[in-house]
């Protein structure tokens, strides 16, 4: 999956874009941490096989949190508003969005797969494909395909279920029951050019954002 660093970078851009007056170092840190948080299920896979890419990558988690947050902010004496003010509410919403989009979304729409509805189902998905128009074939889409003889009759990016499908990680470098200690542990920091661009651009944008609403007010 895209490295945690890249998730954090996209989270940083979201913080700079959406926090408005709630923008502060602490607020931005919360949003960035929310983007990186789903990757914590990688070490969790040591205890719970098949947890990586599922337990914290499920959309049900931010969805539930959003419902809770909505309930809390709608009632008369909101706990989060009372404790952290209006800025706290904004930070919470943006952090949830960051968790879902920059955290899970980036993995799900990627070859490295995530399980968006764990624990309802254990299937991993990689939603990759394209829509294009060509003068010889017309509109072509490859998101969905139907093939009665294929492994998946209705294919929308299924990758398989654990234990057959497993994502190696720094914590669990070899998949399967036998986990040889000798296996090479690999952690990727940047996988491609666009990720490098994102990792470079995010701190620049964050600093620019902080500087532009610095002590002198808005410029």
């Amino acid at each position, binding site marked *: 999956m895209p490295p945690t660093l890249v998730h954090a970078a996209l989270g940083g851009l979201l913080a*700079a*874009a959406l926090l*408005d007056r709630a923008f502060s170092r602490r607020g931005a840190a919360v949003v960035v941490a929310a983007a990186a948080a789903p990757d914590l299920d990688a070490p969790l896979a040591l205890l719970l096989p098949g947890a990586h890419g599922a337990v914290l990558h499920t959309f049900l988690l931010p969805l539930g949190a959003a419902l809770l947050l909505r309930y809390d902010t709608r009632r008369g004496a909101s706990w989060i508003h009372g404790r952290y003010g209006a800025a706290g509410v904004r930070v919470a919403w943006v952090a949830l969005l960051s968790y879902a989009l920059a955290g899970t979304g980036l993995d799900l729409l990627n070859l490295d797969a995530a399980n968006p509805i764990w624990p309802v189902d254990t299937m991993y998905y990689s939603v990759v494909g*394209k829509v294009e*128009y060509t*003068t010889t074939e017309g*509109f072509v889409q490859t998101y969905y395909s139907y093939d009665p003889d294929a492994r998946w009759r209705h294919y929308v990016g299924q990758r398989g279920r654990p234990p057959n499908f497993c994502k190696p990680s720094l914590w669990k470098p070899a998949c399967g029951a036998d986990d040889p200690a000798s296996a090479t542990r690999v952690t*990727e920091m940047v996988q491609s*050019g666009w990720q490098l661009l994102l990792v470079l651009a995010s701190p620049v944008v964050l600093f*620019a954002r902080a500087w532009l609403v610095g002590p002198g007010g808005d410029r």
Partner: protein
Amino acid sequence: MPSTVVHVGFALLLAAALLGTAYDRRALLVVAGAVAFLDLDAFVALVVPNTHRAAFHTLLLPLSVGTYLYADTRLAERSTVRERWGDRGVRVAWTALVAVVVSGLGLDLFTGSGANPFYPLFDQFYAFTGSVEWSSTKGFVQTFVEVRPPEPGTTVDGGGSVDVGQKGSTEQYRVGTAVDPTEGPEPSGVERIVPVVYAGWQTTLTVTGLAVTALKLRWADSPLTLESKEPRAPATESPTDDDD
């Protein structure tokens, strides 16, 4: 090869981060238009061969505009840009410039097909791609810049090389488009491909940009909006942004 849609989507995200109090629909249009403009060099390629990703995908363009903007707003006694479009205009111009460099040029330069950032001064396409990883057997490994030391004993052309992703000049390399799929006159029945959406990270960036824009416009009335606290020129500020 990100399509124009992806460039604009990512630019919307950058615009939301950098426009500050100047954030409104008009400003977004300017930023998106500036970024989309770069891809119009697909049409230039019809006239000057192989100049898609070169003619407008050059750093010289934002560099000259940026120099003018800096000179006009910081060095000159009277700023034409500020007189005409105000402080907001200056902010929008700088933001559009950043979006053009990072989203318009950057996304092309940092993906497989590359761009020609110094055209026409120095005609060379680059594609900065690679990876950085740490492995327990090899340690840190990066493949963005590959340095090959000279081979000992060779005399002719035995020098080392530094590979950062050079693809060749406009004479050796081209990026095809639907407008100009092959070099020179097209044979009849040539396949023209218009990418609409490529799923994966490109979709994530685009969706993020669109979601951010929708939320920003929706939250425009929130007391947290940058505009809300003591507007800088209360007398002249007319209520213009009440459209949502």
